[in-house]
Structures are given as C-alpha cells and as structure tokens.
C-alpha cells in the first residue's frame, strides 16, 4: 500500500475483525428487492460481486436471517441517489441498511453503469467505511460527492478503494 488515504465521514465504528483474516458481512434483500432480475437488484448484485472479487478482507455473504438489509426507497425531496445507515455500538459496527433512491433514477434515466456505480458505492459503505476525499489524486468509487456522469466511468472498486478498505481492515 502506498500512503495513507484520509477518510471523510468516518463512521467511527468498524466490523470486528482479526488482522489478515477474511471475515463476512452478511446481508439480505429488503422487501422491495425480493425479485431477482430487476434493475436495482441487478445493480446491487453487481456491486456485491465486484467487492467480493476484490482482494480485501470483508466478504459479503447472503443470509436470509441477516439484520443487514439492501433495499430501495423513493424520495423526490432528498437530494441523494443512495443512502446507507451504519449502526454502531461503541466502536463496533452492528448493522447496516443499504438503499438506492429510485426517484432520481426515474428522473435521470440511469445507465446500467451509473446505477451499478451508485449501488457499488453504497455497498462499500456496508463495510462501515466513509468516503475518500474528492481531491485524492487517483479516481475512486468512494469519492464523496461526484456528478452522475462520474459513475459512467467509475462503477467498480478502483485501486484507491481497495487500498482504502485494506488500510481500514488490514
């Protein structure tokens, strides 16, 4: 790993893990993503696959009894394309709720890559990590605030994203 990548919006808690050991973050589909093959379900599945295919220690694992949920919402007044709630108990992450906002998809007519980029970014927060500052010199999926067009090009974890997770979960 090169230099330390500063974390923006540090959630203040992490999934408990042991150094150098793979660990599992379980998830289940929310009530609005029960049907396979839908646009957002596909996008989140792509996001899960791309993180799981990266050389990092957290691994997303489906468990229908998980408290961690992936879902959608519809909010025309919230100026966000996706949101993740990270629940902390002290310094330990205990639950995440990962969601995509279908409203802005209906307005901006996302491409497959854009929807995938947003979903993969939110899945990244599922590891209880914050953002990479937008000024970091190499493009990162976990940048904090980028225009939609960014996700046309960057829709899967990039080298800084891998290093970022690696430094948080060494």
């Amino acid at each position: 790993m090169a230099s330390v990548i500063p974390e923006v919006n540090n959630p203040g808690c992490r999934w408990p893990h042991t150094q150098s050991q793979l660990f599992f973050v379980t998830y289940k589909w929310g009530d609005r993503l029960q049907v396979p093959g839908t646009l957002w379900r596909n996008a989140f599945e792509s996001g899960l696959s791309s993180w799981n295919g990266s050389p990092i220690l957290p691994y997303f694992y489906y468990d229908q009894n998980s408290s961690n949920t992936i879902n959608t919402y519809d909010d025309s007044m919230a100026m966000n394309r996706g949101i993740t709630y990270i629940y902390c108990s002290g310094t330990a992450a205990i639950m995440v709720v990962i969601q995509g906002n279908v409203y802005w998809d209906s307005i901006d007519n996302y491409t497959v890559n854009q929807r995938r980029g947003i979903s993969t970014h939110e899945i990244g927060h599922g590891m209880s990590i914050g953002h990479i500052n937008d000024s970091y010199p190499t493009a990162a999926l976990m940048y904090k605030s980028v225009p939609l067009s960014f996700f046309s090009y960057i829709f899967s974890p990039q080298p800084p994203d891998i290093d970022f997770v690696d430094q948080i979960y060494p």
Partner: protein
Amino acid sequence: MNRCLKFLPVLLVVLVTSCASKKDLSSRLPIEPANEPVASVAIIQEVPVVYTSIPEVASKSTVVILGRVAAPREILNTARVPGEPGKPDPQNYSVGQVYEVIVDEYLLGQGPKTIYVIQHQGMMDTRDGPPTETQIEQLIGNSGVQPLSANVQYLMFLRSSNHIFVGYSQDEIFGGAGHPWLFDASNPDCIRLVDSLENVYHYFPPLEFDDFATLLKTPLLDPAPGEGAVYPTPPAGSMLCPENGEVTPPYP
C-alpha cells in the same frame, strides 16, 4: 433500537474457496460482534445529487426563482413507498421542512406568486417505528443544513414532483433540484451559494447577478469526448465577483 439489541451475529464461518488468493486465510475462526448492549448510533452515508454548472442545474429545474420566505410551515416525511407516490414510507423518515415562499420573480418557468418549498433536512431509518420529535430535532441538528431565513432574498433552483403531499397541490410545491439549489441573492453584485456540501462550492463561485442570469439562459451542451464529464472545469475567472479569489476544481 430493539432491532439492534437483538441483533444476530453477522460474521459467519463460511468456507469461500474463491477467495483463497486473498490474505492469510489459514485461520477462519468466527469473529463475534462486540457484545456490548449499549445504545446504538446510526451514521448516514449518502451519494448526493451533484451538479457542476448553472446550465446543468437549470436543465434539471422546473422553475428558477428569486423569492423570500414568508413563514416556515410543517415538517413532512417526504420518503415514499416506491410505486406509491402518495404513501409515506414507513421504513424511512426523510425530514422535509416546508416553507411558504413569496416569489419576487420567475427567472425560469412560471407559477403562482406564493409557492411552498421543501428543504430536505436529514433522513433516518424508521423500520422500528415513527420518529419522536426529539429524534427529528436531532436529525435536523446533525444534518448540517442551514434553515432558510426570512430576511434573505434567495435564488432557488426548484423541481416539482409527481409525489403527493397532502394539503398541497402539485403545481405549488417544490423541492431543491439537487446540490446546489439555493443561493443568497441579497446582494445583486454577488450571488452566493448556500449548500451543506462543501465540494460544490468549487463549481459555483460567487457571481454577479447579470452573469448568473446569462448562464441561466446558456443551453446545456454535451461535453466533448473525454472532456468535462469526469472532471468538469470551473467557470472562467472573469465571471467571478470582484472580491472572490481563485477557484479550483475539487478533482485532480
């Protein structure tokens, strides 16, 4: 939250052979979550709706107005069940502070003299039940959003919505078009951005009103291949207010 307190272990022992190339996997003992029954705290991480130029945010707006807040009204939950535009979402509470706004001038589009503007002030998980007033107040306090002031003339980029908000007709209620949507227009020599997202300040330096109005009427052009899409260029220095310093893009 009850849900959190009865939270099940989330780290399972599962052999995943496809990850054999990762770091030392020789020991895959279960890692138990911290067993500390203390109150949990929810941290919110978002992908914001971000625009990078005035023509772009104008293209996403139903109307652009100069106006003043007459009075704050109620707080609504603006989250909806997907596919049901009139049904508040029981799983999310999205704080929408409604303001009654007197329109001084429509710079783009048209509408009534008095409109209602919803300012988004935070969001929370409500799968365990509706929020208390205290929780809503905390949410607003933590959102970093600056409430609208009655003594300021604002320039607002607003979108109408197909969502139904009881007590308001769809042609009189609007929300922000994205980041940014709100500018302080009290001084026509210097229209200043008001936004909780600091990075958008790189794209929207203070401008004189006439320059702002010119940009409003500028058609949105597709960027040339390889230009502008990923790392947009900030406006030229000639457009800045006299006292404004140099502007740099937020991206390398």
